[in-house]
């Protein structure tokens, strides 16, 4: 096999712009958060400037990579680098969620039962002796002094109420979207761009529906159930896990939408070259698996 030269750009302006805009972004984020109770503060301007610069840099950076790809600069070996790179990036995301799932499991198996006086470290019950361990934890150990007690949790409401239970619809939407993105992939592999575009379009639509449903769910939690980030460890784990997942859905949905635009308006991708789409679809399947875990451990069990 003939050796293809590995493309190494001689220099690039994108990384230093990205680093500098992230610098502005985190100065802005830290200052904004530190001055949350000061309405006079303009720190958020720094935050948004950094964010805008960062997103713009990413846009031009990715555009450059796509251009290079279309100009045929990428050898098979370089394409393989992107495949490995994406796989390991997804692994790092898995570990990020593992930290939050780990926190959930620890709290449910150890911290809350101990505070309620059960188990080997049940001595902890001496802090708040009236506290009884339950999950979902609605009554906080301190009896709602520092934290707000919610009216109810987001867990499985029983079979009679199942038709009003949003997470079930969310699950159906997200699981179907994993199937539709797979149909798009199959179509593309057969070289059928029309099938690809239609199924990919449906997937992006399902992503939007999911985000809409989750917004409705959050609204219900905050407005009707009084369940907020301040509702003790149940609210903390619930909103952080589902929130980060929702953020990843938006990110994955954005990736898929970009692929759709590239395919429909620029005619990118064919049956041989489509790793950009494949990477986005891997990410989408990953987001889907996280949701299944969430549905099981946050909502049902």
């Amino acid at each position, binding site marked *: 096999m003939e*050796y293809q*030269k*590995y*493309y*190494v*750009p*001689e*220099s*690039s302006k994108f*990384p*230093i712009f*990205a*680093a*500098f805009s*992230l*610098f502005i972004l*985190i*100065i802005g984020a*830290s200052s904004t*958060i530190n001055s949350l109770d000061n309405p006079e503060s303009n720190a958020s301007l720094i935050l948004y400037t950094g964010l805008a610069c960062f997103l713009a840099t990413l846009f031009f*950076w990715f555009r450059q990579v796509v*251009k290079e790809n279309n100009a045929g600069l990428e050898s098979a*070996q370089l394409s*393989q*680098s992107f495949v*490995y*790179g994406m796989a*390991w*990036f997804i*692994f*790092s*995301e898995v*570990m990020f969620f*593992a*930290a*939050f799932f*780990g*926190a959930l499991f620890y*709290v449910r198996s*150890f*911290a*809350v039962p*101990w*505070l309620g006086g059960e188990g*080997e*470290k049940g001595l902890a019950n001496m*802090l708040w002796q009236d506290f009884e361990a339950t999950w979902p*934890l609605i009554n906080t*150990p*301190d009896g709602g*002094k*520092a*934290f707000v007690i919610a009216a109810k949790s987001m867990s499985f409401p029983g079979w009679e109420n199942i038709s009003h239970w949003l997470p079930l619809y969310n699950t159906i939407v997200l699981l179907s979207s994993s199937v539709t993105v797979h149909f798009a992939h199959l179509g593309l592999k057969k070289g059928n761009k029309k099938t690809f575009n239609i199924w990919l379009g449906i997937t992006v639509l399902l992503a939007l529906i999911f985000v809409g449903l989750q917004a409705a769910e959050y609204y219900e939690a905050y407005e009707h159930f009084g369940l*907020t*980030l301040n509702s*003790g*460890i*149940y609210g*903390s784990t619930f909103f*952080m896990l589902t929130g980060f997942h929702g953020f990843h859905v938006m990110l994955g949905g954005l990736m898929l939408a970009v692929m759709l635009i590239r395919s429909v308006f620029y005619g990118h991708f064919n049956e041989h070259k489509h790793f950009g789409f494949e990477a986005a679809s891997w990410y989408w399947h990953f987001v889907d698996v996280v949701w299944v875990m969430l549905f099981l451990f946050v909502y049902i069990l």
Partner: protein
Amino acid sequence: MSSVIESHHDDHHHGPAKGLMRWLLTTNHKDIGTLYLWFSFAMFLIGGAMAMVIRAELFQPGMQIVEPEFYNQMLTLHGLIMVFGAVMPAFVGLANWLVPMMVGAPDMALPRLNNLSFWLLPFAFGILLSSLFMEGGAPNFGWTFYAPLSTTYAPPSVTFFIFSVHIMGASSIMGSINVIVTIMNMRAPGMDLMKMPLFVWSWLITAYLLIAVMPVLAGAVTMMLMDIHFGTSFFNAAGGGDPVLFQHIFWFFGHPEVYIMILPAFGIVSHIIETFSRKQLFGYSSMVWAMLSIAILSFVVWAHHMFTVGMPLAAELFFMWATMLIAVPTGVKVFNWVATMFKGSITYETPMLFAISFVVLFTIGGFSGLMLSIVPADFQYHDTYFVVAHFHYVLVPGSIFSIMAAVYYWIPKWTGNMYDERMGRLHFWLSFVGVNVTFFPQHWIGLAGMPRRYPDYALQFADWNMVSTAGAFLFGASQILFLFIVLKTVMGGKKATPQVWEGARGLEWSVESPAPYHTFSTPPKVN
């Protein structure tokens, strides 16, 4: 559109650009390696200056030089800067310089990402250091930032600390993805996994550990941020959380992290001992398996940092035994190094001196680690200077000595010039004496009960603290000599041959010294 790219493509294979832009825009693995190494050296000197403040305050009992609040900030920043700013970037710099050359690749697999990984670091540490000048001062809760010290009782600058940790983590993850992809995808034909140089193996495993645990650290600081500013109760028992949860998450990151700081050292030392013993390394495949076992075990030992926090007995026992198991693969490595030297034709150039003292002093640190792994004994040692002595023995004459050894060993390849051997040896002996005088007495005052992290101590610890401070200043001053030696070598010196060292083997020694700006545009043949 394509014409733009063509002209871009034509620029390929000119030398480096001139001036500052070369360093800002570079995608060259050697340039980026150099940037990492100089950044790490700068952080080493800054973190070292903070250590001098700490030791100066501890020279005598009582409060002399700094306020306790400032002492806490120095202690915290010293730890954070040495771990995230000095040791880790130094190893990444070495990986950048060496991995592509060792596997016969034209560059790192993702060159632009490589530049981003580096340039995030100066910004992140700029923010961290600027917190010294913020209202309420810099982070003051120790490098382990346990909640609630780092949440309920933290200074406002903790928000900046949290985001700078995020950026450092992003840098590490991207750098590690780059290393893994380079090793998996860019090896020259014929370079099977079990033919890879051990430094490459050590970095493959290290990069895997980094990708596995840096996101967990990101999770931990995110929970802190939410607890401090957005009313969650992850680490607050009043809401059903648990401050101990913080320690579990932190050490799930933290224990693999300590192997991240030592595995590349294992790789470096293996190469150096092999070269200067003029023998093939003893037990190559057992070295690889030992590193893999250490990496896997590192995920199931984290709670040995928390024996006194109040865990169920079964957990104490599990983590004790799992920790002790790590001594087995580590022992394999030490025996292999010794066996490599056995009946070798050894010469004692500076890299070899550092490498041999690495083996001896790292083993001392390993043994004190074994002592600490024993639960009932740890109840006595926990949070004393014995622990300080232990981890400084594995980090200073361990990680840092291996980095210095690597610099002396490969600097002729980087610059084309030999360093001054006499000055190198002087630097070694001053560092060797300095390190032992600083840290060995800390074992004794720790066993006698001196707690760590305080700016003052009881009178009976005065003598050895004075000795320790004297050693610290000797060690600190001898690093100025190191800086001088490195600068002198960069400026000029005796010209180095391609092979540099008589016993050196490996692809990086097959190219001229200094290594050309682009090596292996087409892959070399590997037998």
